[in-house]
C-alpha cells in the first residue's frame, strides 16, 4: 500500500497494511450526513432510541400537546412582537393611522402596541395569535391536568412530574398576567393598579414591597420595563427549562396507557415515534397553529386601541383579568368588605388578602401536594403505568370535581357584572348566589360524583356477571318471562375487571406487644380515618370466583332479579321439581 520513498526508515514499513477499520462505527452504520453528525456528536444512539420509542395512542394524551404547541406559538409570535414593541413608559403623542387616538398623550408602550396593530403589516394578526395562543396555553394546561388527575397518572413514579407541571401551570398564568399588563392600555393599567393594591395589603411590608416593585409610588416609570424583562426573558426561560424537564421525564418514565387487553404495568402498547408520532404530533402542531390563526383572523382579542391609553383616573366597566386570573378576581368580588380590620392605627385588609395574596399560591400548593396526600392514605409504594378509569377512584374523582367546582364558582363570580347585564339579573343576587355556592356546591358535587362513580362501578359488575341487557324479553313455554342477557366479549370484560380491589387500611394496635404506645400510632389513626373516607364504600371488581359462580347458576336464563333473588328462584325451582316428582 505505502508508496516507496527515499527515506531509509520506510523500508521497515514494507508490507504494512493501512488501517482496515472504518472511520467510525457511526459512519459505517448510517453514512451520509447523519454519519457525519454522529461522528462529531454521538447522537445516533440517543436519537435512534427516541425514534424507536413507543407511545400509546389516545386523544386525551394530545391535550398536553396543545399546551406545548400553544407555548411554542407564543414564543414565535412573541419574538415578532418584540421587534416593534417599546417597553417604556416615556410619554409620546400618537400620530399614527388610528384616528380616534390621534393627538392623544400616551406611553411609548401603548403607542407602539397601537402601531403594531395598525401600521405594521400582519402586526394585528400576530398580536391576536399571540394572545389567543396564550389563552389556549392555559386552557390546555388545565384540561391536561384534568386528564392526568382523573386517570391517576400522577401516581408513583410520576409525582415529581406532577409537581413540575403544577409549577408550570402557575408560571404560565404569571407569564400571562405580565403580558396582559405590557400594552399599558386602560385595561392592563387597571390590572397593574389592582396588583399594586394587592401587594399593598400584605401586612407590615406591603408599602415597602410596592415601592420596591414600582421603583417608587404607583405608577412610576419602572413597572413596564420590569414586567417586560420578566415576560420575555425570565419567565419564558424558566418555563422552557421546566417544560424540557417535564417532557424529558415523560420519555424517561414512559407514557402511561389506558388499561386494555395486552396492556400491562410493564409494557407500552402503541406505535413508535418514527414514523407514526413524528407524523401525528408534527401534523398536530400545524393543526393547532392553524386553528389559532383562524381564531386570530376571525375574532378580535384585547382591542387595545378601544381601551385607550392608561391613565390612573378612569376605569372602564367590564374590567376583568384574562380568564386564568378570573378566580382570584372573583374571590375579591365575593369577599365581604366588613373583613377589613383597623386596630391600633393599623389596617389589616382581610377583605382582600385571602383572594389577592393567599388564594393563588394556595390553589397551586393544594394541586401540587395531592399525590403525596393520596400516597399517605394508600401507603402505595408500587409503580403505576396503567391509568385508572375515573369511576374506579370515586373519592379522588369527587375531590377533583369538587375542587374544580369551587374554582369555577370563583371564576364565574369575576364575570358577575357581565352576567348581570347579559342575563338581565341583579349583580347583588348573583354575588350572593356565588358566595353561597362557593361553600355549598363543592360538597354537593363531591357527593353526586362519588355516587355516580359507585353506580357506574356497580353497573360494570352487573355487566360482567350477567352480560349486557339485550332488551329482548323471552317467554318460556311454561309462561315465565326473562330478559336475555348477551355475554360480554372477553376483551370488554377485561376492561371492567382489570382494576385492583381496594379496602380501607386496617388500623394497627396503638400499643405493641409489651403494652408500650407506638410512636406512630397517631399518624396511623389519621391514615386509617382518611383511608376509610377514601375506600369504606368501595365497589370492587368481580373476582374470578364470583364470575364462575354467576356463570354456573346463570347459564342462558338469567332472571331479571339480582343474583341473590336468582338463587332463591333456583331453590324454588328445585323444590318445585322435587314436588312434581
Amino acid at each position, binding site marked *: 500500500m505505502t508508496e516507496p520513498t527515499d527515506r531509509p526508515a520506510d523500508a521497515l514499513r514494507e508490507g504494512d497494511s493501512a488501517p482496515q477499520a472504518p472511520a467510525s462505527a457511526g459512519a459505517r452504520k448510517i453514512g451520509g450526513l447523519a454519519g457525519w453528525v454522529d461522528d462529531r456528536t454521538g447522537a445516533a444512539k440517543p436519537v435512534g432510541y427516541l425514534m424507536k420509542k413507543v407511545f400509546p395512542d389516545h386523544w386525551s394524551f394530545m391535550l398536553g400537546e*396543545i399546551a406545548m404547541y400553544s407555548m411554542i406559538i407564543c414564543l414565535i409570535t412573541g419574538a415578532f412582537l418584540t421587534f416593534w414593541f417599546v417597553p417604556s413608559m416615556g410619554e409620546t403623542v400618537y400620530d399614527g393611522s388610528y384616528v380616534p387616538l390621534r393627538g392623544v398623550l400616551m406611553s411609548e408602550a401603548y403607542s407602539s402596541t397601537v402601531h403594531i396593530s395598525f401600521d405594521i403589516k400582519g402586526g394585528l394578526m400576530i398580536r391576536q395569535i399571540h394572545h389567543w395562543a396564550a*389563552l389556549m396555553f392555559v386552557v390546555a394546561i388545565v384540561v391536561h391536568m384534568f386528564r392526568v388527575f382523573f386517570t391517576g397518572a400522577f401516581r408513583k413514579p410520576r409525582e415529581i412530574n406532577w409537581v413540575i407541571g403544577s409549577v408550570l401551570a402557575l408560571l404560565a398564568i404569571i407569564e400571562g398576567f405580565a403580558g396582559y399588563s405590557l400594552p399599558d392600555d386602560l385595561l392592563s393599567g387597571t390590572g397593574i393598579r389592582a396588583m399594586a393594591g394587592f401587594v399593598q395589603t400584605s401586612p407590615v411590608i406591603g408599602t415597602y414591597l410596592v415601592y420596591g416593585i414600582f421603583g417608587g409610588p404607583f405608577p412610576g416609570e419602572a413597572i413596564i420595563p420590569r414586567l417586560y424583562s420578566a415576560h420575555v426573558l425570565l419567565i419564558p426561560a424558566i418555563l422552557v427549562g421546566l417544560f424540557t424537564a417535564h417532557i424529558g421525564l415523560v420519555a424517561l418514565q414512559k407514557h402511561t396507557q389506558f388499561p386494555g387487553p395486552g396492556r400491562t404495568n410493564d409494557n407500552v402498547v402503541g406505535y413508535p415515534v418514527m414514523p407514526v408520532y413524528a407524523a401525528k404530533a408534527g401534523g398536530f402542531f400545524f393543526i393547532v397553529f392553524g386553528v389559532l390563526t383562524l381564531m386570530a383572523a376571525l375574532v*378580535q382579542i*384585547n382591542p387595545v386601541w378601544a381601551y385607550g391609553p392608561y*391613565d390612573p383616573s378612569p376605569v372602564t366597566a367590564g374590567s376583568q*383579568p384574562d*380568564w*386564568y386570573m378570573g378566580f382570584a378576581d372573583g374571590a375579591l368580588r365575593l369577599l365581604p368588605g366588613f373583613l377589613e380590620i383597623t386596630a391600633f392605627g393599623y389596617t389589616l385588609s382581610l377583605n382582600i388578602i385571602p383572594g389577592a395574596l393567599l388564594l393563588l399560591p394556595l390553589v397551586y400548593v393544594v394541586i401540587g401536594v395531592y399525590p403525596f396526600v393520596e400516597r399517605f392514605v394508600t401507603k402505595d409504594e408500587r409503580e403505576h403505568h396503567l391509568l385508572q378509569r375515573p369511576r374506579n377512584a370515586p373519592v379522588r374523582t369527587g375531590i377533583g370535581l369538587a375542587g374544580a367546582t369551587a374554582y369555577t364558582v370563583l371564576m364565574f363570580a369575576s364575570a358577575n357584572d357581565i352576567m348581570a347585564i347579559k342575563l338581565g*339579573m341583579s349583580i347583588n343576587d348573583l354575588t350572593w348566589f356565588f358566595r353561597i355556592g362557593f361553600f355549598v356546591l363543592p360538597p354537593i358535587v363531591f357527593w353526586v360524583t362519588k355516587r355516580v362513580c359507585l353506580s357506574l362501578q356497580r353497573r360494570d359488575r352487573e355487566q360482567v356477571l350477567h352480560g349486557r341487557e339485550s332488551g329482548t324479553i323471552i317467554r318460556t313455554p311454561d309462561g315465565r318471562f326473562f330478559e336475555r342477557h348477551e355475554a360480554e366479549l372477553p376483551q370488554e370484560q377485561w376492561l371492567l375487571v382489570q382494576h385492583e380491589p381496594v379496602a380501607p387500611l386496617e388500623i394497627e394496635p396503638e400499643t405493641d406487644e409489651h403494652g408500650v404506645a407506638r410512636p406512630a400510632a397517631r399518624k396511623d389513626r389519621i391514615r386509617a380515618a382518611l383511608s376509610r373516607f377514601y375506600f369504606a364504600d368501595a365497589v370492587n371488581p368481580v373476582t374470578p370466583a364470583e364470575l364462575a359462580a354467576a356463570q354456573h347458576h346463570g347459564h342462558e336464563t338469567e332472571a331479571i332479579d339480582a343474583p341473590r333473588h336468582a338463587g332463591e328462584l333456583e331453590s324454588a325451582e328445585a323444590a318445585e321439581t322435587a314436588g312434581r316428582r
Partner: protein
Amino acid sequence: MNALAARRRHPAAIAVLLMIGLFLTGAVYAAVAPEPADATSLALPAQSVEEGKALFRANCASCHGLNAQGRPTGNGNQIAGPPLAGVGAAAVDFQVGTGRMPMTQPGVQASRSESVKFSDEEIAAMGAYIASLAPGPAVPDAEAVDPTKGDPARGGQIFRVNCAMCHNFAGSGGALTRGKYAPSLRDVTGKHVYEAMVTGPQSMPVFNNANITPEDKRNVIAFLTTIDQEKAPGGMTLGSLGPVTEGLFAWVFGLGILVGCAVWLGSKAA
C-alpha cells in the same frame, strides 16, 4: 336514500340533525314571526302646550300625576313617577324618543325600546308642555350634536374619564347595583346622547355645561359615532365586553375545535 340510510348511524349524524333542526326552526321563526304592531299615530298639525298637556294627561299622568307633580305609590317611599317640573323638553325627548317612556310595566329601570309610541310632533308637544311648567334643558339643535364638527380623539378622552366606568370602554354598557344597568351606547343618536348628558336619566348623573362643555359633549358624540362606524379591526368583537367573552370563546370554541381535532387524529389508524 340508501346512502342516507347507511349513514344514519354515523357518529356525526346526531350533530348534523341537530344543526339542521336548529337552522330550520330559526328559518321558520324568522319567516312567520309576527311583525311588531305599528304604532299608528295621529300627526298633530301644530305643537302646542295645550296639545302636549292633553297627551300627557292621557298617557303619562297615571304615574306622573295630573299636573306632572309626581305620584307616590303609597307603599313606603316608592314613587310611581317623579315630578317633572324643571326636567325640560330634553328629558321628554330622551325618555319618549328612545321608547323608554311610557314604561310598559314597573321595573328597576326603563329600557330602551325600538317601538317609539309617539311621533316627533307629539313628543315635541309634550316637551313644550313640560318646559312650560318650569325652565329646564332644551332639546339641542342639530349643530350641537353634529359628529362631523367634533374631535373623536378628544371625545374619547372625555368618554374614558366620565362615561366608561359605567358604559364600558366601547359603550357596550355595564352593570349597576340591584339589576340596574348602564345601557349600551351603540347606535344611539347624537341628540339622545346629548340629552342624556344634560338631563341625567335614571341612575345617570347630570353632566352640565360646567362639567363637560358643549364642545366636549359634541366631541363625545363624534367619538361614539366613529366607533359605531368603524369596521371592527381584527374580526368579530364578541360584544366588546372585555376578557370575559374572550375567555368564554377560548374555552368553548378554541378548546372545542382543538379537542375535536385531537379526537379525529386519535381515531386515525397509524
